């Protein structure tokens, strides 16, 4: 097959896609969030529409929590990182539900007739009498489907990325990997749809069987992943090898069946995991991470640098900043102490309240209950603003201390920097960490054991897709039109 023929088949595929009603509907639906991403601007403290109407995040939170009787501090805590969370939720909603769920199903339905239509009497006679092999014609219909989803997902993801960058100054390079994830899943299911189309030569059968395969495949993989978590959790809970109980026959059959299926069948769900893994390699590593407590500090406080000799479990992890006028330093100190050494959190709070003669306010960190004290200290004639957060994580007390020249610290810029720093602190729950440590998600990666290995997943999925296409070709070669 020469280049002219290839170009002709590509153009034919493109014309077919552009003329497709399903494509046009999806295009219109996908353009809507793209246009909105340009029109709605997510600023640091407010949302604006078309740069004319503007609403403060605080107003939203106030009206949303009016009936809950939250105090100002709690509301302020809710506002911490609200922009980031809002943007992430919107993007997740559009990509995960809009494109990955609805778009996927609609896309499969829209293009499942490509192959059966080509094989219709009259149509097949014309096309297959041309000096082009059946394989090339079959693959051209497959490529047409990929063009279909390629254009739509690039438009959606690329458009939203650009829109958010222009209107909100927000850019997440990792978001672009969603295009890969969408294409990857679609490439697999479209291959199945094409092959079913060859066997049944019926568009409805092709759509229905593909749409049935999608959730069944997903369910069986999820079942296998659940099995892995249970197995590992059981192993973890076992204290001695003697406790090992023999597996029941039914469980062994189920396990073997699910494992075999997992090995053979396409693992399209791994696409998002691979995208996440690639995304991580592009992301800036967190400033600090304590795996034991599941505590992550996203970024250093703006304008501060970490004291290299400081330690989290010792005197505390310290970030320092010199005042611009050279008058002393400001610091953030994050410290972990054992509960057995400090006594309970409430005892600590009571003690400090007595010392300062002031009441704490509730100021949660990463949705964990935290008491915050704030006072001004006179240190050699200099007014120092002091803040301390006290919270309990597992069997540890975590304290966060802020110590800065009062006037400097109360400047808007410094308050915003402090808010951003606090929003960047994440603490996972113990259950989450236990679950995550055992889950397929956490173990999945480019260098893990074969069951969790991204290369294995990619290889077997591509092999499955190739075999499905080969089966379709084998059948197509045997059809007498």
């Amino acid at each position, binding site marked *: 097959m020469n280049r*002219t023929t290839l170009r*002709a088949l590509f153009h034919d595929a493109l014309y077919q896609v552009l003329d497709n009603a399903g494509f046009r509907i999806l295009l219109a639906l996908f353009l809507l969030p793209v246009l909105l991403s340009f029109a709605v601007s997510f600023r640091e403290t407010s949302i604006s529409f078309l740069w004319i109407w503007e609403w403060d995040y605080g107003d939203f939170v106030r009206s949303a929590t009016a009936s809950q009787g939250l105090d100002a501090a709690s509301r302020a805590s809710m506002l911490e990182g609200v922009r980031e969370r809002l943007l992430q939720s919107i993007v997740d909603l559009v990509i995960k539900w809009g494109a990955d769920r609805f778009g996927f199903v609609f896309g499969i339905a829209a293009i499942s007739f490509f192959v059966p239509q080509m094989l219709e009497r009259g149509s097949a*006679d014309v096309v297959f*009498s*041309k000096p082009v092999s059946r394989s090339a014609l079959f693959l051209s219909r497959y490529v047409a489907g990929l063009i279909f989803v390629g254009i739509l997902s690039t438009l959606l993801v690329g458009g939203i990325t650009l829109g958010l960058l222009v209107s909100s100054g927000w850019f997440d390079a990792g978001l672009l990997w969603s295009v890969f994830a969408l294409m990857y899943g679609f490439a697999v299911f479209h291959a199945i749809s094409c092959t079913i189309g060859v066997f049944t030569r019926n568009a409805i059968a092709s759509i229905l069987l593909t749409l049935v395969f999608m959730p069944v495949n997903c369910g069986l993989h999820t079942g296998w992943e659940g099995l892995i978590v249970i197995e590992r959790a059981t192993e973890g809970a076992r204290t001695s090898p003697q406790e090992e109980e023999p597996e029941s026959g039914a469980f062994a059959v189920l396990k073997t069946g699910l494992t075999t299926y997992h090995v053979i069948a396409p693992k399209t769900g791994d696409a998002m995991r691979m995208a996440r893994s690639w995304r991580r390699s592009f992301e800036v590593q967190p400033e600090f991470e304590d795996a034991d407590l599941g505590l992550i500090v996203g970024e250093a406080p703006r304008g501060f640098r970490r004291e290299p000799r400081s330690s989290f479990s010792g005197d505390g992890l310290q970030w320092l900043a010199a005042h611009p006028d050279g008058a002393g330093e400001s610091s953030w100190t994050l410290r972990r102490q054992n509960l057995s050494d400090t006594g309970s959190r409430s005892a600590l709070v009571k003690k400090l309240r007595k010392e300062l003669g002031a009441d704490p306010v509730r100021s949660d960190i990463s949705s964990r209950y935290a008491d915050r004290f704030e006072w001004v200290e006179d240190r050699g004639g200099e007014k120092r603003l002091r803040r301390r957060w006290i919270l309990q994580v597992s069997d540890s007390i975590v304290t966060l201390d802020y110590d800065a020249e009062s006037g400097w610290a109360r400047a808007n810029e410094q308050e915003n920097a402090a808010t951003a720093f606090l929003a960047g602190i994440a603490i996972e729950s113990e259950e989450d960490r236990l679950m995550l440590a055992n889950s397929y998600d956490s173990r999945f990666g480019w260098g893990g054991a074969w069951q969790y290995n991204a290369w294995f997943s990619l290889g077997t999925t591509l092999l499955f897709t190739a075999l499905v296409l080969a089966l379709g070709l084998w059948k197509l070669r045997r059809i007498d039109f």
Partner: protein
Amino acid sequence: MSSHETIVSVRDVTKVYGGAFGRGGFRALDGVSLEVGRGQVFGLLGPNGAGKTTLVKILLGLARRTSGDALLFGQPVGEPRARQRVGYLPEGHRFPQYLTGLQLLELYGQMCGRDKTQLARRIPELLEQVGMRDAAHRKIREYSKGMTQRIGLAQALVHEPELVILDEPTDGVDPVGRAAVRQIVQGLKDRGTTVFINSHLLQEVELICDRVVIMAQGKILREGSIAELTPRTGRYRFDVEPAAELRLAELVGELGSNFEPHAQGFEVQLSDTELDTCVDRLRGAGLSIRGISARRMNLEQAFIQLVKKETR
């Protein structure tokens, strides 16, 4: 133009649909052999279910033969290369509805290996030829049946093939269009293109084909030129002067049978001896014989007679 070179060669081809291990199934072709030389206009005739379309599909690689050999330009059918020099207009064709007529011709031209420059020259003249120039930019879904047939003919010819296979080429085409199709086929013949026609319209086949094969029940019943396939009926037409009816009836009325006078003379069924006697009598009576023509069966009559006889 030479008809010595064989373009299509079919040797003992059999096609059985269904069945397993050579047993049972429907035998659509049963030991069919034929050859088509370069430059011929070849007609394939037969009642429904005779195996004509199956034979065409085997030639184009659309169906696989059960046994036998079939070659196109000396290459085994089924190979895409063998179809490089073939143009095909199938019966009941369906073209991609999302394309315009122009895009369709570009697509199929390119699929047959023609580049854009060649097609830029070829397509306008072809559209003109089939009378589709004004509708070239309209989507195929907007075409009438006749227009689809015309664009179908154009797609079969777009790459200037050496063999054109036309399956019911005038299906759905009005009388003017049919004449245009005949003209195109004649033009192809003049340029030395081999044309393979499968049609139910026997008068058309009679008008344009050099050789004809008549098939029934998967077998070839008869093959030959139109003259070979249409035997004389023994009936003669005489054009004489003066053509006075009464006198003519007196002179030759008792010779042969079925005497029928007409404005220029008469028609009568005669044996060879009676023919000589008839001529002698007319001359003896001082009549001037302007013309004598032996009446033949038309193709339709010959076809019906043959098929009835063979399938009885």
